[in-house]
């Protein structure tokens, strides 16, 4: 493998080793090693059960009917023929289900959002909108009945992009609140500095819609016990408590009668933090009083869930001749799709990452979300940050060209420094390593050497052209300071020395459980096999907002570490009573509490057993952690591409990712996350787009939505800068979302470098590249 440890090229910041107070880096037993994900044996043998694999006695099968037209009013749903199919139990639709409305994106009780959706509505707003659901004894009967439902819809005029919707005004009535949802203007950084003599630059980007394409589509098993009134929901979701508030409020179920359990998740990337499948399943379970299961088809996963929005953005700046931007102005239009869902928040939150890699003395931000008859926009790995940095990085490349500066130099000129203040939030960026990422990256990538080599290659002319690009990006580690961010943890010491941990986590398949166990094992100095930890279950695990916002390692991991330390203290306190030695004279190490000055101690298990027998007490601790920091966490990626000017195909020849991560917990899984982010990002940059056809239907098949596959994904070299952060567990900061932020700008920058172009309509598909070349050729010099 190519990733290294601790290759930071700048002097360590004063904070950097602070967190490693108890032990030096080298004595860490688990942190920084590589362990397989907790359920990998089950996944390798087919034993792991995902929601769509689960069956329970008496279970009914659901099949969802979705709209083929983009906008209209449902006049009638005729189910006569469908109901005549043997083994069909019933059909649910807008005329026989709840009229109440919900917002698929809500994840906190009381969150103020417009509730625009019904389980089934009599107004259809996109191709893929839910119309009806067949409930049947067998999947075959459900499918057959689906094809026999007759729906009478009066079509309405439609628009599948924000520009058309805004210009025509035809969607003004799509919702009672209208179709345009502005975000309050944000002015950041106080006084406008003196802008005389500055260079004014304006750039724009058009980013098309993307799909998450998790290999597992959305699925849910729901059950309703009519005797007890208990509803149970099993689904791969990123927030059991968030889902509980949505479902319980929608169906008017008391929270204690609604149990949500997180199941094995076959990937999310944000697509399972909003809920479209579960409300249908719960409606059917309530209706029948039987367990029901619904699995979305790939087409439904593409059209009827959420997607990354399409976006138009412009960036204008005033810059000094040396490339330092003094004032920046962004204007963003988010195409929300058919329901507003999270899009107004999404549009607003984009500017909260404006100062997470660069710092600008003054900035202005305007945005709006516009509803259209398109797949609904929602959470997607990075939550707007990849789009923001695509726009910023494109701007920097343009500016660098105009000012004859190297792209890496202009970025360094504007990069935030350790201890800088995030102008938007007023909070410190702490141990940010933005500049170090660029410096280390251009050295390891041999940026300047490659620049020369490419010049020589391209000057020969011919079919293939090469280019290099750099992409930078920053992100957060939690909700702070937008929301207070807290986590509860409980730990019990069993009589055999095992630790039972109770906390709310949702493993997306990126190793959250094993990371938590590594942190706890490290802190308690116990073998990791002795630490057990489950996943979110509203009947059992503590209240939690969910596994998103890149908060899991930084906030939840720190909570786990603190609780483990508390458990250690509790073990010492119990041992002190049992051994009759003052606590101050005892220490806990390697699973044993013993006197500091020698003598016999008690193992953790013995303490638990003796406490039970002699004191009638369990060794138990609970801990509430409130996170109050959010340091800068950054990355810089470097790509070399070769463009085939005949076909417009792009080969990514070399790729380097430098990640300012604070501390790696699980090394190989972390590397895999970065490499996976490059694979998805390469698709977003070059091939992946959901586009509408004339009927208003968007790309709904993997035949037309082009993912990069194994031969097309580049080998990704990784450098982790690991010099610790203050508050993260063992110095760790976030990675999963951040890793995708620099990818698209690095690749797009490289393609534009290869062609001497300024292409800004993404993805840069072969068609777009060929059309560009046909229009004016290569402007490379």
């Amino acid at each position, binding site marked *: 493998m190519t990733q290294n440890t601790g290759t930071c090229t700048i002097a360590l910041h004063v904070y950097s080793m602070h967190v490693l107070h108890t032990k030096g880096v080298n004595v860490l037993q688990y942190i920084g090693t*590589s362990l397989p994900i907790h359920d990998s*044996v089950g996944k390798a043998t*087919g*034993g792991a059960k995902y929601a769509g694999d689960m069956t329970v006695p008496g279970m009914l099968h659901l099949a969802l009917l979705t709209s083929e037209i983009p906008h209209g009013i449902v006049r009638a749903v005729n189910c006569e023929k469908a109901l005549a199919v043997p083994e069909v139990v019933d059909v649910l639709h807008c005329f026989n289900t709840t009229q109440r409305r919900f917002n698929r994106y809500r994840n906190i009780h009381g969150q103020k959002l417009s509730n625009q959706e019904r389980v089934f509505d009599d107004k259809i707003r996109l191709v893929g909108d839910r119309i009806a659901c067949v409930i049947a004894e067998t999947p075959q009967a459900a499918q057959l009945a689906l094809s026999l439902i007759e729906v009478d819809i009066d079509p309405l005029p439609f628009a599948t992009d924000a520009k058309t919707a805004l210009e025509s005004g035809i969607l003004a009535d799509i919702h009672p609140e209208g179709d345009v949802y502005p975000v309050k203007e944000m002015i950041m950084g106080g006084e406008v500095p003196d802008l005389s003599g500055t260079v004014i630059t304006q750039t724009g980007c058009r980013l098309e819609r993307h799909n998450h394409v998790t290999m597992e589509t959305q699925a849910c098993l729901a059950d309703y016990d009519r005797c007890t009134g208990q509803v149970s929901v099993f689904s791969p979701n990123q927030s059991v408590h968030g889902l509980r508030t949505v479902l319980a409020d929608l169906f008017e179920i008391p929270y204690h009668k609604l149990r949500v359990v997180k199941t094995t998740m*076959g990937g999310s990337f944000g697509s399972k933090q909003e809920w479209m499948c579960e409300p249908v399943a719960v409606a059917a379970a309530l209706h029948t009083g039987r367990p029901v299961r619904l699995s979305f088809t*790939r087409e439904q996963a593409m059209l009827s869930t959420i997607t990354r929005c399409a976006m138009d953005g412009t960036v204008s700046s005033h810059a000094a001749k040396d490339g330092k931007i003094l004032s920046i102005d962004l204007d963003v239009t988010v195409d929300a799709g058919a329901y507003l869902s999270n899009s107004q928040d999404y549009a607003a939150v984009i500017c909260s990452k404006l100062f997470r890699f660069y710092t600008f003395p003054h900035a202005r931000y305007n945005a709006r979300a516009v509803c259209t008859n398109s797949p609904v926009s929602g959470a997607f790995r990075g939550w707007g940050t990849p789009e923001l940095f695509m726009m910023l990085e494109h701007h920097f490349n343009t500016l660098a060209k105009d000012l004859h500066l190297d792209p890496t130099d202009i970025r360094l000129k504007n990069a935030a420094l350790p201890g800088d203040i995030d102008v938007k939030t007023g909070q410190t960026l702490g141990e940010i390593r933005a500049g170090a990422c660029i410096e280390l990256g251009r050295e390891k990538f041999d940026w300047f050497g490659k620049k020369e080599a490419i010049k020589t290659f391209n000057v020969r002319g011919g079919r293939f052209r090469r280019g290099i690009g750099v992409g930078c990006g920053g992100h957060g580690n939690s909700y702070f300071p937008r929301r207070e961010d807290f986590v509860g943890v409980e730990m019990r010491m069993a009589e055999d020395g095992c630790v039972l941990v109770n906390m709310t986590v949702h493993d997306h398949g990126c190793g959250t459980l094993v990371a938590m166990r590594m942190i706890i094992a490290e802190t308690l100095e116990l073998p990791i096999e002795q630490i057990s930890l489950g996943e979110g279950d509203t009947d059992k695990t503590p209240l939690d907002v969910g596994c998103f916002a890149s908060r899991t390692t930084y906030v939840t991991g720190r909570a786990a570490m603190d609780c483990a330390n508390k458990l250690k203290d509790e073990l010492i306190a119990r041992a002190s009573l049992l051994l009759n030695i003052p606590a101050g004279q005892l220490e806990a190490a390697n699973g044993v509490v013993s006197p500091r000055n020698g003598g016999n101690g008690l193992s953790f298990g013995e303490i638990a057993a003796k406490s039970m027998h002699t004191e009638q007490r369990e060794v138990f601790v609970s801990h509430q952690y409130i996170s109050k920091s959010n340091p800068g966490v950054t990355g810089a990626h470097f790509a070399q591409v070769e463009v085939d000017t005949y076909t417009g195909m792009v080969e990514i020849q070399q790729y380097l990712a430098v990640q300012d991560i604070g501390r790696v917990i699980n090394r190989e899984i972390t590397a*895999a996350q970065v*490499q996976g982010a490059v694979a998805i990002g390469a698709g977003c940059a070059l091939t992946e787009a959901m586009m509408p056809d004339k009927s208003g239907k968007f790309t709904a098949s993997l035949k037309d939505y082009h993912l990069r*596959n194994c031969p097309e994904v580049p080998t990704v070299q990784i450098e982790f800068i690991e010099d610790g952060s203050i508050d993260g567990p063992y110095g760790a900061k976030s990675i999963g979302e951040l890793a995708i932020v620099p990818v698209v700008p690095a690749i797009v920058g490289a393609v534009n470098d290869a062609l001497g172009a300024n292409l800004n309509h993404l993805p840069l598909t072969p068609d777009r590249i060929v059309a560009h070349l046909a229009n004016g050729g290569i402007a490379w010099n």
Partner: protein
Amino acid sequence: MELNFTVNDKPRILAVSADARLVDILRDELDLTGCKEGCGEGECGACTVLIDDKASHACLTVAAQLNGKKITTIEGLGEAGKLSVLQNAFVEETAIQCGYCTPGMILSAYALLLTNPAPTEADIRTALAGNICRCSGYHQIIRAVQRAAKEMGGAR
């Protein structure tokens, strides 16, 4: 129709309709849910199983094509309670994240190693071209296959 075939070395006789898809037969009739459906149209590889030792899409194969065939699913790879060399390599090389691609990925790799015990990286990439993994960048997967090849004797 009456379907007479072998699944994981056990002879099976099932009454199914001729157009029943193999993915549904395995999952719904035989409870072999390690065979995943990711797209239903041959694009993702999640449903890959071995039909007469060849990696095949269970979503595109129907009962009418299966009489007398030998099917191997992920459940049939190791011995009871023991991982096969290839499965073990996937686990230990951390080539598994969400795991939804894993059964198909392992079976495609298995089929490769049956015919090419010492594949190059390019061979592996080509053999896995039809199996999408959305979580990883394939690095650990490729390494797992290389490791298994070595451990199974076909070192290259």
